[in-house]
């Protein structure tokens, strides 16, 4: 515990050392508190601002930014942001007013660092402040004063250094011209940002502009110091509304540097939630302050971030404008940051519109054919255009006319096969050309005669020599009437001598069975076949009559005697023995099951 405590005291030192001036700000913030009142409850977000959440909004906002108009959105977002700012200013606690202001500055710096470097240092600075606050109250004042005297200067320098590190990098990239441009462009932008300008105090805007113009000349360290001082001065001079606006500029710049589209509003909402979880230990008073401070830049970032992101992606100038050097200087001083992005937006819009208008006007068909402009001409734009035809896009699939007909799709094979056509068809006349399938559109050669080899070919028309026809060869119909069947029985019995009839089976099976039976006839005596079913029952009934059975047996015996070989005699005898029995159907089931595999009749 003791080891932890000595580290903590650093934060309190800052507060004590710089508590003198910020008091004024406190009074102003308290004013706003009274005005806002209920908003504090909403902004009780966690104190520790971590930059991680900011990235998510950046990625998510990109889609947002692309679809939305640049000029329209920023205004409502800014207005929405201004409200939380007011709340934030009111939030600072009475105990550490100076510290709150300093922390309010820090969070402003943090977003920049977060975007530039998403590493720990930013969070480290913030976290200790939240953790130390409770400890500070517990630590004796004597210890604090001593420690403060020792470290009072150090923390400020450290902060400046940390902030300055990105600036140094950015300063190299930044040019005086770029810094001057936004200031010059402001009048154009003002149309879009009028609402913002109204919300923001004009005096602050002027100061910020002047500061921006002066900034590039200063070294990063000087700038950081100047920022701190300017923040103090402005905080005292500027109205409470202006102070919250300062962070957005910084955030805007950072967003521009990354050239990423960011809806920081979402990030701001998410960030505090995460911070709350992490810094649950922090004091209640400090936590809202930190959260509010952190939330302020985030909200403010949103408006510029969206605008800048939209513009920054296509244009290379955006990252330069958002260089860290400008950020630091702006952080402490100027709330009017939105002007720059708005000016950028307007300029970008103009450029974009001009680009859209140029192809329509410039490539007039009247102009002579452009001299050779091949893909290897070194024109990157043309090279990119050339790629349009290379990469298949939906709808570019080569549909042959026949396939298109099947699919019911209009045959635009021209477009599919000729991606390059889009490039060259700059004129309306070309566009009016009828779109015909490439095959037919391909100009035909001169009238010519076929080669002899091809001309001599005669198409052979094949004539089918085989005719297939389906005909019913024969049919057998059974009449269910018993008396009639009784009459027919002798006929059936006669037929059984050479064939076995299975009335219910299809003709094919009957043929097969008949053949089988014919083959088996010399060896085995043929017998009456009956199947299960209604018709079978009638046959069984017929066969059950002893007179009929005797007739049948008698005929079979005669037939056997005439045709059967001597080997078949024992079987015939067995059958005869069976027939002598009173149950004539018994032998049918036994013999027929084995030979013909027909279903056995059920008794």
């Amino acid at each position, binding site marked *: 515990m003791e080891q932890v405590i000595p580290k903590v005291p650093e934060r309190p030192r800052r507060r004590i050392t710089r508590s003198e001036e910020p008091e004024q700000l406190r009074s102003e913030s308290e004013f706003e508190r009274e005005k806002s009142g209920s908003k504090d409850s909403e902004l009780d977000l966690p104190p520790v601002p971590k930059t991680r959440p900011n990235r998510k909004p950046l990625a998510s906002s990109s889609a947002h930014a692309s679809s939305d108009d640049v000029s329209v959105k920023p205004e409502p977002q800014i207005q929405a942001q201004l409200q939380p700012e007011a709340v934030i200013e009111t939030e600072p606690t009475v105990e550490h007013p100076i510290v709150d202001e300093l922390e309010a500055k820090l969070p402003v710096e943090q977003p920049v660092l977060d975007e530039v470097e998403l590493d720990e240092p930013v969070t480290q600075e913030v976290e200790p402040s939240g953790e130390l606050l409770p400890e500070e109250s517990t630590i004796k004042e004597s210890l604090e004063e001593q420690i403060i005297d020792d470290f009072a200067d150090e923390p400020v320098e450290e902060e400046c250094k940390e902030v300055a590190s990105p600036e140094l990098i950015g300063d190299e990239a930044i040019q005086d011209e770029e810094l001057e441009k936004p200031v010059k462009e402001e009048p154009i932008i003002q149309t879009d940002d009028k609402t913002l300008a109204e919300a923001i105090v004009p005096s602050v805007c002027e100061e910020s502009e002047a500061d921006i113009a002066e900034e590039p000349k200063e070294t990063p360290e000087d700038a950081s110091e100047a920022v701190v001082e300017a923040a103090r001065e402005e905080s005292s001079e500027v109205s409470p509304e202006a102070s919250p606006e300062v962070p957005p500029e910084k955030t805007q710049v950072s967003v521009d540097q990354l050239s990423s589209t960011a809806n920081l509003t979402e990030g701001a909402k998410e960030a505090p939630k995460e911070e709350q979880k992490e810094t649950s230990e922090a004091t209640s008073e400090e936590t809202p302050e930190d959260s509010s401070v952190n939330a302020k830049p985030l909200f403010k970032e949103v408006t510029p971030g969206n605008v800048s992101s939209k513009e920054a992606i296509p244009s290379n100038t955006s990252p330069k404008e958002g260089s860290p050097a400008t950020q630091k200087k702006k952080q402490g001083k100027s709330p009017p940051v939105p002007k720059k992005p708005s000016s950028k937006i307007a300029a970008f819009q103009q450029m974009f519109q001009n680009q859209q208008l140029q192809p329509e006007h410039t490539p007039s068909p009247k102009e002579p*054919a452009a001299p050779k402009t091949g893909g290897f001409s070194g024109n990157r734009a043309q090279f990119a255009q050339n790629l349009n035809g*290379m990469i298949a896009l939906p709808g570019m699939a080569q549909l*042959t006319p026949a396939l298109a007909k099947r699919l019911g799709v209009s045959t635009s094979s021209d477009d599919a096969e000729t991606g390059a056509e889009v490039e060259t068809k700059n004129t309306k006349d070309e566009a009016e050309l009828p779109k015909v399938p490439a095959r037919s559109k391909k100009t035909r050669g001169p009238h010519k005669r*076929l080669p002899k080899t091809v001309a001599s070919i005669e198409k052979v028309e094949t004539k089918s020599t085989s005719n297939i026809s389906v005909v019913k060869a024969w049919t057998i119909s059974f009449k269910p009437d018993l008396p009639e069947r009784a009459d027919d029985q002798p006929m059936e019995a006669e037929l059984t001598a050479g064939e076995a009839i299975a009335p219910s089976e299809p003709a094919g099976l009957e043929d097969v069975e008949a053949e089988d039976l014919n083959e088996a006839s010399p060896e085995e005596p043929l017998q009456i076949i009956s199947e299960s079913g209604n018709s079978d029952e009638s046959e069984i009934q017929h066969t059950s009559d002893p007179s009929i059975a005797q007739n049948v047996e008698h005929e079979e015996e005669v037939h056997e005697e005439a045709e059967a070989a001597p080997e078949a005699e024992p079987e015939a005898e067995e059958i005869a023995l069976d027939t002598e029995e009173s149950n004539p159907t018994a032998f049918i089931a036994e013999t027929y099951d084995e030979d013909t595999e027909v279903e056995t009749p059920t008794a």
Partner: protein
Amino acid sequence: MSVDEKYDAACELLYRLDPTKVKTHLQNLIALEPEIAEGLLSSIDIPLTIKKDTDANNKEFLCCDYNRDIDSHRSPWSNQYFPELSAEDLKESPFPSEPLRELEVACNNSFELYRDLYYEGGYTSTYLWDVDESTDFAGVILFKKAESDDSKWDSIHVISATHDEEGMEVTYNVTTTVILHLENLSKEQQLSLSGNLTRENSKTVKLQNVSTVEQLVPAHSSSLGSMIEDIESKLRSMLEIVYFEKTLDIYNVLRERNDDSTKLQKEQHSELIENFQKL
């Protein structure tokens, strides 16, 4: 099945058959359906053949269906058919009109320079023919480079120049087909890569201060030359960037997956490590 349907079916079939055997497939299809022979011969691009013009110091010229009549091909150098046709056949054989022939000669000369610069070898031939009785014309510009049997490049540019009513503007439509065939003839690693790529392009050019034929010739030749140069560069870059790269990616993926030796090595390596650990 109508003739058009047969024609479309044959084209679809040819698109899906082995590109290295297009000629044989084409002949087989024509044998099946002689009705569509003319359409298939004019629309399906096959590798160009080379003949020599005996009347022009045996200078080679490229042969395709556009300069063919019966079994002979017209040479751009001497404007004669080789092998020679009979007098009766020559009466019906197509020849360009005099002004168009002048343009044809100019184009041949200009594209000879182009071929020398870009192909550093190979052959080129340009053939033009009149379209109806108007001033419009059509033609074909051929390039072939086949230094060896294992690598062939054939580019066929079929052009059509259409003048507007006033005759002040000319619209050029170019249908370009590149037939590429690469083959590794070594027995150990037989690999063949072949295919054709077809693209269309159009361009409208205003003729300024062009009234006579002498002025028309350079105007047409220059505009055609620029278009051909542009299109060929595009197609070449497409082949390099898109098709070859993609083919290489696929090849690499397949090769990695099928490399069983690496798996065995990894397994053996892991076994060795385990055995060492046990010790």
